[in-house]
Structures are given as structure tokens and as C-alpha cells.
């Protein structure tokens, strides 16, 4: 009975969040198309003239698919903090007939669905732009979808966790430089774990504590195969990071907002 009620509220909250997010979807998709097209055209074609390898375009596209959710972090965190400090819809949801876990899960699942939808839509764009460099037959579809789903689950959880630490809009300016940019830049977006280990082992070990590394490596491993961390290992580690952040977010929000 309790579980049935929780699932019913979870479903309604997810429906609500997705319905509410509809108004920004096209804008977000256009932003993502600009980013993907620009990155692929420069890295896959222009940079060859500067000595980059022929397959660097598809390598970058793997990174893009893995980390596209991280670029939703900033708006996600901002919206959360603006809401908490303003209209407080979050507080209203926390007073519904469900546990706090359900409210958080609904947020995470809805955000994940939203960012996955964008990721899936940029997949054909990658094929069109890279054409012969991107062989559909090389893709391991199940691990690819697995990594994309789990990576986006992690990014949605990371948004909650970061918002629970940042605390107020006053400090939102620090989030980009202290959280998002280092995670993205040092998370193997432009280089692989294996190649880094060959040139700078200590740095490669540091990469292993960055969840973004597992998102980029996992996608590349499923997309083109080769010398990347195994996709299933990446899925496991991403889930582990997600679980820790999920429970810690609830603990922090319960304390910060003084929730029952």
C-alpha cells in the first residue's frame, strides 16, 4: 500500500517535471546542436591540419555523448536554488504524501530522461557530421545505452548534491569554475585514461576519482572499442558515485531546509 502510494506520487512528479520542462526543450536542443557541431567540425576536420589523428573526431564525439549531461548541471543547479530561495515548489513537493526519497528520485529520473532524450537526438547528428569516421556497426548498443543512462542519472544526482552544498544563489558563480569545469576538463573529454597513464601516471590516478572519466571512457569503449575503461566497469562506478551523492544530498537538504 505504502509502496503503491510512493510509486503513484513518483510517477505524477516525473510527469509534472517533464511537462514543465517541455517549454525549454527546443532551446536546449538547439544549444546542444551548436556545441556538438562546432566541436566535431573543429576537432574532426580542422585540427587534422595541426597534426591530430584521423579518428580524433569520433573520439571527441564519444566524449560529447558521455558528458553532454554535465552541461545541464549549471541550469539544473541554478533552477533548484532559485526555486528554493523563491517560490519553493521543492518545499511544496517535500510536503506531499510521499517520502523525501521519492521527491528526490522524481527529480533525478525526470532530469535524466530529459538529458538522455537530447543525447539520443544528437547521435544521428554525430553520424551525419562524421560520416565515414563513425561506423554504426562498431557500436555495442547495450553498454552504450547503459553508460548514457547511468551517466545522466549521475549528472542529475550531482546537480542535487552540488545544490545541497552550494546552499545559496550568492555562491552560484563559483560552481562553474570549481565544480563543472574541472570535472569536465580533467574527466578525459579531450584525452583518454590509457594515454594519460602512459605519459603522466599520477594524473591518470587522479582521473579515477572523477566520475566524468567513467562517463567519457564508458561511452568511447561502447562506441568504438579499443583501449578504454570497460563500459560495464564504468557503469558500476558511476552507480556507486550516484548512490553516495543521492543519500548525501538527502541528508544535506533535510538539514539545510529543516525538513521532516
Amino acid at each position, binding site marked *: 500500500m505504502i509502496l503503491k502510494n510512493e510509486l503513484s506520487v513518483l510517477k505524477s512528479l516525473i510527469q*509534472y517535471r517533464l511537462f514543465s520542462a517541455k517549454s525549454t526543450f527546443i532551446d536546449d536542443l538547439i544549444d546542444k546542436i551548436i556545441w556538438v557541431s562546432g566541436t566535431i567540425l573543429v576537432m574532426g576536420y580542422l585540427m587534422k591540419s595541426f597534426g591530430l589523428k584521423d579518428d580524433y573526431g569520433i573520439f571527441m564525439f564519444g566524449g560529447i555523448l558521455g558528458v553532454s549531461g554535465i552541461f545541464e548541471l549549471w541550469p539544473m543547479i541554478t533552477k533548484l536554488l532559485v526555486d528554493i530561495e523563491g517560490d519553493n515548489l521543492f518545499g511544496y513537493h517535500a*510536503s506531499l*504524501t510521499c517520502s523525501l526519497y521519492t521527491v528526490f528520485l522524481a527529480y533525478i529520473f525526470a532530469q535524466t530522461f530529459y538529458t538522455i532524450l537530447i543525447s539520443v537526438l544528437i547521435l544521428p547528428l554525430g553520424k551525419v557530421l562524421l560520416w565515414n569516421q563513425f561506423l554504426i556497426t562498431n557500436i555495442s548498443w547495450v553498454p552504450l545505452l547503459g553508460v548514457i543512462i547511468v551517466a545522466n542519472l549521475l549528472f542529475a544526482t550531482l546537480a542535487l548534491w552540488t545544490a545541497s552544498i552550494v546552499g545559496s544563489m550568492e555562491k552560484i558563480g563559483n560552481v562553474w569554475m570549481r565544480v563543472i569545469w574541472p570535472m569536465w576538463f580533467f574527466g578525459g573529454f579531450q584525452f583518454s585514461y590509457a594515454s594519460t597513464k602512459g605519459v603522466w601516471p599520477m594524473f591518470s590516478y587522479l582521473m579515477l576519482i572523477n566520475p566524468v572519466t567513467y562517463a567519457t571512457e564508458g561511452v568511447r569503449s561502447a562506441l568504438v572499442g579499443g583501449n578504454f575503461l570497460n563500459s560495464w566497469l564504468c557503469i558500476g562506478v558511476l552507480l556507486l558515485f550516484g548512490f553516495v551523492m543521492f543519500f548525501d544530498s538527502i541528508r544535506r537538504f533535510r538539514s539545510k531546509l529543516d525538513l521532516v
Partner: protein
Amino acid sequence: MSSLIALKNVSKRYKGASKDAVRDVSFEIKSNEIFSLLGVNGAGKSTTFSMIATQHPVTSGTILWDGVSIYDNLLEYRKIIGLCPQKPSLDKKLTVEKNLYFAGKFFGLSDEAIKLRIEQVSYMLGLQGYMNIKIDELSGGYVQRCSIARSLMHSPKLLLLDEPTVGLDPHIRRQLWQLIENLKRDGVTIVLVTHYLDEAEFLSDRVCILDKGAIIAIDKPENLKNSFAKNNLEDVFLELMSDTCALPK
């Protein structure tokens, strides 16, 4: 009238605060009454309200619903309350109808039941002509009406209204008073937090006046006026608050 909610020695101290926001507060809210919490800013009325609404936990003491702690059956308790917070907490990008629709969904109503209930609450609150308008295009009075409508979607037994008429034009306030009276007539118990003493006097069966987190008076407005030999509740309030509100000499 039987007791619906009872606060027993409830205290609240916020994290990092040096003193209690609410101290050892006990009272009962009877079924089908309008019970108002009054006090100056910082008196503890919104904190008391938020604990009854389960937005914040008590630090000590307990809140009973039909004799059982609300924390023992939190989710069932939340089903009987309709919460209308001071900040409307509506989705501004959605229409009135969609805000009401999702409120119904959150409480497990079927689409058919939601449709019927939307018709009822929109009629009660005069929102029929505004259903397809987004919240951020509405005036303050209509946002407030929508917030009350949302809190009524699941037909709660206990309606919690935090400053429902603040900032509204006098004629809109009067309309909302009428609505609150109608809800009482329909069997709803109402807890009202307000700064307006005329509103409290007009609507309330009983008022609870708080000062510095503690109850200093709790009774029917008529009884308080008689006890203090005053013509209106505002004069009673000013006398009770003479120390708190005195200007420095």
C-alpha cells in the same frame, strides 16, 4: 466540537539559533472551527504553522492527530491537510488548470475525478475564466485564489492558510473571507495565520496570540474583548503587546 489536532508542549529551535522560535506551546484545534494564529513578526506563528503543516519537524513535544502523533503516520496525515503557504509555490510557467491538474495527480486522483474537482474549486474561487492563463500572467489576487484552489484539490479536512490575504485589495480580501466562511460551512477545519486583526476577528472561532514564541492568550474573540473590556480584537492585541511593541523613549 471534538479535537482534530493537538499540540503538546511543542518547542522549536532552528539550527544555529540561540533561542527557541516556539516555546512549550500547547493547544487543540477542534473539528470544523477557524483557528487563527496571531502575533507580531517573529512571534512564532509561522513556525507553529509550518510544524502543523509538517514543513518543519518539532524540536520537542509532539503534534497529535486524532490522538496519535502525526509523525507515526505522516503520509496519512498529509492526505488530510491542504497547504496554502505564504509564497504560493505554484509553477509560474504552467496554466492555472495544469497547476490544479498536477495537484490532483500528486494526491492520487483519477483524471475524471480531477476534472470534476477542478470544476468545483474553480467555481468556488471564481477562477472559471482563468483556467488557460499562466500563473505569471495573473494578478496577485488570482494567484492567491489559485494557491487556495490547489490546496483544496484533494478535499482536505484541515486547510492551512498562511497570510492568504496579504497584499490584496480590500474587495478581494472580502471575497476570500467569504470563501473561507463557505469552506467552514462545508465542514473544513481551518488554521489561519494572519497579520490582519480585523480578518481574524471576522473569521475566527478562536484565536491564539503568540509573543516571543509562547502563547499569551487563546480564546474566542468575543471572550477576549469582554475580558479586556475592548471593542475590537485589535485593541486587545495592542494591550497584550504593549511591552513588545512599545517605542523606545
